[in-house]
């Protein structure tokens, strides 16, 4: 396995006086693995995602994709990285219909996708085709998140960041979206950000735990319950499951 994404010494602070959110993060993600990034709210998960996506610049440290800085890598691989956000409502332009939203997921410079390509993507995320002319506010939360996922995988990205993609959905819908992602994420390097250990072990082979801006544990899924780290154990203890009845 070759290293696909490498981050060294990432630091990021916000506000005045500066409040550190990330303190020296080192990451090395091999190609084709689904990674889980876990932590409580405020641990710096989403900030790290924004840095890795090139949406913000780190205060210190650098990020390399296949040995290149993000901007250069992105200009050479248009549509090479993609993202699904937690808040699906603000993730789509409200005046565009489903087909137009999904079409935006095709890489810039590529020819305009025909309706067959859009329908094929809708099939992959199990969205009925008759929805292709609907506007976002006419869809349910689960349907809209499926639209966002279809848009995100349209360009077959090498890196897919999933920033809490199921946290705003009903439990019943969560399970179905996770199944879908499990199926789709196999082909790419995928970073699944969540606070929910249950959702993470559903999807991820490797788990990274973040606490107060630092990586406190990085382990394969099978060793999750063997760790001694108190914060990880805390997170495990907080996980709410149905008791036997």
């Amino acid at each position, binding site marked *: 396995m070759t290293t696909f994404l490498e981050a060294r010494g990432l630091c990021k602070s916000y506000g005045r006086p500066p409040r550190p959110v990330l303190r020296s993060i080192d990451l090395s993600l091999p190609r084709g693995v689904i990674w889980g990034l876990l932590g*409580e*709210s*405020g641990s710096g998960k989403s900030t790290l995602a924004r840095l890795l996506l090139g949406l913000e610049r780190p205060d210190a440290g650098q990020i390399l994709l296949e040995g290149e800085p993000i901007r250069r890598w992105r200009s050479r691989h248009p549509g090479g990285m993609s993202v699904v956000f937690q808040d699906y409502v603000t993730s789509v332009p409200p005046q565009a219909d489903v087909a137009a939203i999904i079409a935006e997921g095709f890489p810039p410079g590529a020819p305009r996708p025909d309706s067959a390509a859009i329908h094929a993507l809708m099939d992959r995320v199990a969205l009925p085709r008759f929805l292709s002319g609907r506007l976002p506010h006419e869809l*349910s*939360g689960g349907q809209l998140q499926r639209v966002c996922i279809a848009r995100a995988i349209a360009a077959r990205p090498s890196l897919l960041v999933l920033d809490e993609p199921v946290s705003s959905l*009903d*439990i*019943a*819908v*969560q*399970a*179905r979206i*996770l*199944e879908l992602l499990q199926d789709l994420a196999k082909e790419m390097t995928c970073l699944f950000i969540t*606070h*929910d*250990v*249950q*959702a993470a*072990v*559903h999807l991820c082979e490797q788990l990274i735990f973040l606490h107060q801006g630092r990586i406190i544990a990085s382990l394969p*899924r*099978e060793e*999750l*319950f*063997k760790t001694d780290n108190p914060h990880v154990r*805390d*997170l495990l*203890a*907080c*996980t*709410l*499951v*149905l*008791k036997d*009845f």
Partner: protein
Amino acid sequence: MMDDTSQKTAGAAPLLEARRVGVRVRATGEPLVADVSLTLYRGRSLGIVGDSGSGKTLLCRSLLGLLPSSLTAEGQVLFDGADMLHAEAAEARHRRGTGLGLLLQQAMTAFDPLRTIEAHFLESLREKCGLAAAGARRKAEAYLNRTGLAADVLHAWPHQLSGGMLQRCMIALTLSLEPSVIVADEPTTAQDACHQFRIVRLLAGLRQERALLIVSHDLAVVQALADDLLILHEGRCVESGPTAAVLAAPQHACTRRLLEARQALSRPFLQLRGGRA
């Protein structure tokens, strides 16, 4: 609707009783909630479970007499001898807070951003309980401590606190008015796993002394909190009964689907945990 055994265990008269409550769109007459009845006794808790769009939140709001003017309610909600659905606005308002307390999903927008947490406590306690500043402050501190917050959050502004802390502030504020019934509408949904767990534990500790109505889409949360269960589907009650009984032998397809989805979500986690033991 309620099972007979639960009535016997509670013994006393019901605290809150809803009879055939319905909610319609005023303009079109389209029913959003139809024909839901429920009874809540002191020291018991009732969970209302359903998908989004099943009418959970509207049912909650109608119990408190807080429907927006574009909707109309029918049926009866009896609380403390008054019908909350048809009471005068002032009367319904009088019973909210000290009688019926409400916990919302979005703590972020529940506080006035221009005032400190303390100002919220002082105003509510003065208006609802007639407490002077010093007494109100003591009470606020006591309840904040119960929710695991230090007293100095009183001097914080809402934007200085995290979502989880604000949620606990809201719980403390609601509890400090000592309502006899707490209506909690998805109180854990916007929270991360740890905060969710703490809030569930906090609410579980409360239901001994009061009556709790918990609304959620998550059966695990409801199982941890509710003695009885009411499943809503498309605005109608499709199943109800003691929690353990409903979960052990779900009758309606909707209940089975909710249960299966919840189990599917936890399966890999439980397998890993089981593998360790």
